[in-house]
């Protein structure tokens, strides 16, 4: 994962603004980024909100879960699954969507709009 300079992080919201085991969408530097908070340890994920299959901005509204050990989100439109850690589409190896750096500090959520590589 690429290192991200501290200054590129944007404060987005309080951690509790992301519903537990679900997502919200943030607008960061003009990009729509879906944020998820999952499990007892409040694991955080940030992934593009754009679903390339339906061409609609809906990923934040998908159901999250696991496939084996892989955390995933499922597009609410045509139900393709995406690996939350790297954006890889599980149903179609040719497709992946960007993920973004996200972290929590002092109960607040910070996200960078510079894609992970």
């Amino acid at each position, binding site marked *: 994962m690429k290192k991200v300079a501290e200054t590129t992080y944007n404060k*987005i*919201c309080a951690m509790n*603004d*992301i*519903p*537990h*085991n*679900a997502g*919200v*969408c*943030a*607008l*960061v530097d003009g990009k*729509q980024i879906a*944020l998820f908070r*999952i*499990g007892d340890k409040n694991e955080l994920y940030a992934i593009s909100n*754009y679903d*390339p*299959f*339906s*061409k*609609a*901005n*809906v990923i934040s*509204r*998908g*159901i*999250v*879960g*696991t*496939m*084996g050990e892989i*955390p*995933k989100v*499922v597009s*609410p*439109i045509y*139900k393709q*699954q995406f690996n939350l850690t790297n954006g890889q589409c599980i149903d*179609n190896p*040719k*497709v992946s969507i960007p993920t973004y750096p996200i972290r929590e500090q002092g109960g607040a959520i910070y996200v960078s709009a510079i894609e992970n590589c």
Partner: protein
Amino acid sequence: MNSKHKIVIIGNGMVGHRFIEELVDKDFRDNFSITTFCEEKNLAYDRVSLSTYFNGKTKEDLSLMPEGYYEENGVEIFIGDKAESIDRKAKVVKSAGGREVHYDTLVLATGSYPFVPPIQGQKQYYFEGYRAFECGDHKQHIHVYRTIDDLDAIKASASKSEIGTVIGGGLLGLECANALKNLGLKTHVVDRGPSLMGVQIDAEGGIVLRAKIEESGVQVHTSKSTKLISSGKEARYQLQFDDGTYLETDILVFSSGIRPRDEIARKAGLKIGDKGGIVIDSECRTSDEDIFAIGECALWNGQIFGLVSPGYKMAGVAADIITAQGDRRFEGADMSTKLKLIGVDVASIGDSHGRTEGSRSFSFRDELKGTYKKIVISPEGNRLLGAILIGGVEEYGTLQQMMLNEMTLPKDPGSLILPTTEEAAAGVGLDTLPEAAIICSCHNVTKGELMKSVQDGATTIGEIKTATCASTGCGGCSTMCKQLLDNELAKRGVDVNTDLCEHFPYTRQELYGLIRVKGIRNFETLLAEHGHGAGCEICKPAVASILAACWNEYILKDEHYGLQDTNDRMLANMQKDGTYSIVPRVAGGEITPEKLIALGEIAKKWNLYTKITGGQRIDLFGARQEQLPLIWEDLVAVGFESGHAYGKALRTVKSCVGSTWCRYGQQDSVGLAVEIETRYKGLRTPHKLKMAVSGCTRECAEAQGKDVGIIATDLGWNLYVCGNGGMKPRHADLLAADLNKESLIKYIDRFLMYYVRTADRLQRTAPWLENIEGGVEHLKAVIIEDSLGIAEQLEGEMAHIIDTYQCEWKTTVASPEKRKRFRMFVNSDETDNNVIFVEERGQIRPATDDEKFELGVSRKEVFE
């Protein structure tokens, strides 16, 4: 010049039609041409189920083929034209309509006609074709029971009558009595013999059957020969019997047996049996090698076969011989029957009377339950020859197979019918049957064919049905099919994984049980106690649905929010561009002008696209996620409630306008629809649920295409279940007839909760029923007779759902916390710039990709 071999068929009944189907299956078109005469004005229909015509089935329901079947398959048909004579020399059939049709091969499938005994005073009965016509004063109220036209005539005269009498206590006579009873007549059955169904059942069985039938209100008179019909004093006619007694009745229906219709064959000089019937050999060929006869008009080995399945067999044989494809021969047929007459299960197998010399029998009679069971065994005591079952027919499949396959009897043959050894009876069996054993006698499906369907990948009863047609006729073999499926799968070591998903090693039904019994209220607890991992898009919505069906909490409660699927999560229906549509409830499709205007005003204010739905509501499209609570604030303010169009839940109860306005309406269908929709609104089910109420049998609400369909009769309501429109249409099954409202609602309560309890995830009621062992009969037992003893429980569960109803949108709009969930961005009040509408036909619609490009909205990378 047509060089094809020309096949002409006289008669388009069930057997004539089956013959054509056999030819179609053989892809006949290159070498043969087919022409058929159909004397009736209706093409082939299901005569076996004729009595259901009075329970709301229509001509279309009874029809044996989809519309246009003959046209599509290049079959020429002359409807309403009777073939009158055959010129065997010229090989020409002449018809009443003046047609002269050449044939290379002729097939007679003329069927039979109802026999009417000569009775004084009745003047004369004469026959013109398939219909009996009465001379004299009695027109309109003396009938036979054979065709749809007969039934129309009976129905018409029933509307002017109170008492109906059937002469003839055989199988058809009792069917007919049931029909009269369903028409609301006080019904009598008169038979010359000492007991009912004398052909199939012995005297002792006759006593049990009679008691059961009289319990249902039909009066039985045996050993009565009618000698005179005169005008009645209290009713239209008086029947005078030879023992000096008499009976008065308004309607008279003769059902005193059938006779083969062989007149055209007689005239043509074909060989006819002494008591009638066109003589055929094992190839179904008559005395003229170019003429075949099949079905009830044919006489094979001195025997007429008055059942449909031997007729189907003959149709198959004739098709094999004529096309020289296949090698089936007719070698007799099993005349075993199993049916329900006036609510009584009756079955007769093989030599039920014990006419075989030296045969011996065992019988068991339970007057408390009203059951009678008898088996007839060979003189050596090692083979089953026949059986009679009344009041309970569970053993039918096993016994019939034992008889047909000459299986060795158990040491104590009595155990086959004694009630204490049900397990023993059920265990006899399947494994020892040869592969050629016919399991489904309606469609002639063998054990081998069923095994093959499992080999080819079928793992459910539904798949077996689709692959083989087995169990789609009378359904009598469904238990055996299920057993066979289980055995085969076990043998193959196929481990059918029925786990809901990788997170729960349980079926949906098992999870439902766990949640209900252990009182589990949320997903986290269920996962911790019974699952592993973090859940997924399969188990989360399934569990959310079960939790809602059990406890009925607000579905956007924090702990439930993340479980909800696409639409439930926003309480609206997501469309292709990520915007939503809104469908407020319009119960029964009834809406006041004020509310209609209010709805229009709101749609206009928010610039929504409006469309009328198939469920008699109004759908408002193009609402952005963040607008949903605002729009609903407006809707709630004028009194609208959530329509649950987004949920796997009750959608609508569609209705026709009913007796309030309609000239034909029998009952207030709108009133009932509103009441039912209000009762069940908000109920979460394994899949979406649609209902409808029609005010009369014209069925304008299309209730038979719904999960629950209700059709008004003059006596109450008929309840249909498990219908479906859409991708895989299925006509609903009649669950119960002529119900009052109280029973109707009670049965729907039980039906719905039983479905909720036992269906698979996302299984509509139609495939659910297809996979239930015992089919609709099982449902009737559970719902009407409470055979599982759970009726009260089911009703209680439903009562809880009804008591705890809340409008989800009203709750949501009132909660600032919940409303936050609808923001497009957690950190901004911007809107989604990828949602673009253009105008078409005066309303908005989503812009296409090209339009978005032209409008300068940046197009993102397109993945292929």
